[in-house]
């Protein structure tokens, strides 16, 4: 066995001996605790609370006046729920840019392609209908910056 070579920096092949020390220990630990507490705030703040599921209401005057068998959206309910945004997007481009303003639904019935005049005619309760799901999933479509909702008229009618 070879004799370890000693130099002025310590023994060759060995780690230099450094005193292990945790500087600013209390400050760092406290900081970590505060940090973890802050980023998990949304989780533990909502512990035990449940957010009510969206509950879009269909009790507008226009819908209620309809006969039971006519009480349908322009397309099937599941389709509308899943794809109304694509449909409105397509409507917007076709109406404004190509002047195609008439929509023929799968059932063959014709509708004017207009958010403000067709959709909102029945769904005149934006805050009870549109906003219910949009708020739940945290989306904020900017339709309403320009398109008028009919809620003012609805309130006056009541």
């Amino acid at each position, binding site marked *: 066995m070879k004799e370890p070579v000693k130099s002025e920096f310590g023994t060759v092949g060995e780690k230099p001996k450094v005193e292990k020390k945790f500087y600013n220990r209390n400050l760092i630990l406290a900081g970590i605790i505060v940090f973890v507490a802050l980023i998990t705030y949304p989780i533990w703040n909502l512990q035990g609370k449940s957010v009510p599921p969206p509950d879009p209401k269909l009790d507008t005057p226009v819908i209620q006046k309809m006969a039971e068998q006519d009480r349908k959206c322009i397309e099937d309910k599941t389709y509308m729920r899943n794809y109304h945004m694509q449909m409105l997007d397509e409507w917007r481009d076709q109406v404004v840019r*190509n002047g195609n303003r008439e*929509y*023929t639904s799968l059932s063959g019935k014709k509708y004017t392609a207009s958010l403000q005049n067709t959709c909102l005619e029945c769904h005149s309760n934006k805050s009870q209908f549109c906003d219910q799901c949009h708020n739940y999933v945290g989306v904020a479509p900017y339709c309403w910056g320009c398109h008028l909702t009919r809620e003012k008229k609805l309130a006056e009618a009541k």
Partner: protein
Amino acid sequence: MSISRRDFLRIAGFSTLFGLGAKSAFEMLAPGELEAKLTPNPKALSAQRWAMVVDMRKLNEQTAEKCIEACHRVHNVPDFEDPIDPKDKIDPEEKIRWEVKWIWKEKYEHAFPGQAEVAIPEKIHKLNFLLLCNHCDNPPCVRVCPTKATWKREDGVVMMDQHRCIGCRYCMAACPYGARSFNWRDPRPFIKGDDESYPTREIGVVEKCNFCAERLAKGQLPACVEVSKGALTVGDLNDAKSKVRELLRTNFTIRRKTQLGSNPQVYYIV
């Protein structure tokens, strides 16, 4: 039995190419489900080239006011003179700076500058011309729009797509007629909003006359024409039998700033 590396790559390559190509070819050729279902309204008024003739002999002050009122009402154009809530009152300077107009009145020398007459008849000097977007055949606003928010339709109407407007105001700088207005503030408090069939605009977009595209599409004449008692006429410039052509044939007409080459399509009989 084995397959050589070269054969394997060849087969794999061709099948990928076929797979991708067939899919995109199918997608390109098949019409979109929704696209195919949207069609123009059969009752819509159409023309190859829309144009307007303003007969200043028939247009008096009250009719002009009525035209302006009708247009601004059906398009929800804000009236800064008259807020819904008196608390929103703005000072006179801002009223001028923020003005939004689709159709308005102007004196001859402001409407037709550079015509170089030494003296004009007293009658014309006193007239208030009814001005609006000229729906130019060579629209400078369309050339400069970076987002194609404004464009010329095939029937000549210079349209605005508010969904695309980013509010850069290049079009306002380009338009030699002052036909475009910018929404410096939210216009809603100044719109009575009686007409809920047409949208308003929001802060930060440019707006102008759209030749009542939404009314033409339903088979109605533009709002201003309807209330003008025959002073305003719209029609197809490309149709020799149209009312517009008849008026142009039988009367001498002038147009605004033709020297700029924008080829405006609103004609004035003086």
